[in-house]
């Protein structure tokens, strides 16, 4: 079946604009994660959903970042009033429930804020 897909793959935003990044997880995967990968760094956790419930948002860097998964499938990460430091690759991953299950990653959305 299809893997995790993300759109858009590339996004250029002017500072101050709002952006929305979409993630389509693998069908049937209960858990969904968002990570942020700055240039030359490893991914860092942003937030986690189990079905439609956002169980952990401790990694969101500011209140400009907001994520939702209203029907327990597709998720959207929204960044308001983008800043240059928001430039990064945003990765989405999905998995079955349980810590031992592999997280499958999407290709990411590369956000550049000018």
């Amino acid at each position, binding site marked *: 079946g299809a893997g995790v897909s993300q759109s858009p793959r590339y996004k250029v935003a002017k500072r101050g604009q709002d952006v929305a990044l979409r993630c389509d997880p693998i069908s049937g995967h209960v858990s969904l994660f968002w990570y942020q990968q700055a240039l030359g760094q490893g991914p860092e956790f942003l937030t986690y959903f189990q079905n439609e419930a956002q169980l952990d948002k401790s990694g969101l860097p500011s209140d400009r970042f907001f994520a939702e998964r209203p029907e327990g499938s597709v998720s959207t990460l929204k960044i308001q009033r983008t800043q240059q430091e928001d430039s990064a690759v945003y990765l989405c991953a999905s998995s079955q429930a349980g810590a031992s299950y592999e*997280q499958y990653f999407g290709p990411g959305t590369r956000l550049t804020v000018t």
Partner: protein
Amino acid sequence: AQSVTQLDSHVSVSEGTPVLLRCNYSSSYSPSLFWYVQHPNKGLQLLLKYTSAATLVKGINGFEAEFKKSETSFHLTKPSAHMSDAAEYFCVVSDTDTGTASKLTFGTGTRLQVTL
């Protein structure tokens, strides 16, 4: 708090020679440990994982890793490097939980270069 330290930011080997990528971890709980690989412009792919079963874990493409609790290490090895192994490798830790998924904590990555 959980963390991983990848001891080398860049490793260069000749094709056909052994690969060693080093990783040390820190975790308050019984950890799950992973190695992921990231090829340029491609998504992260799981190489192997340790989840408290056998301490020597075999993964895809001939890679393996050994969990050593006394040394808090989880080094990645491969007997013979191939040109296609050139990529960024991430050591990753996740605190084991009884039923819910758990966030992954990534190291800073090791770039593996393979030369002819």
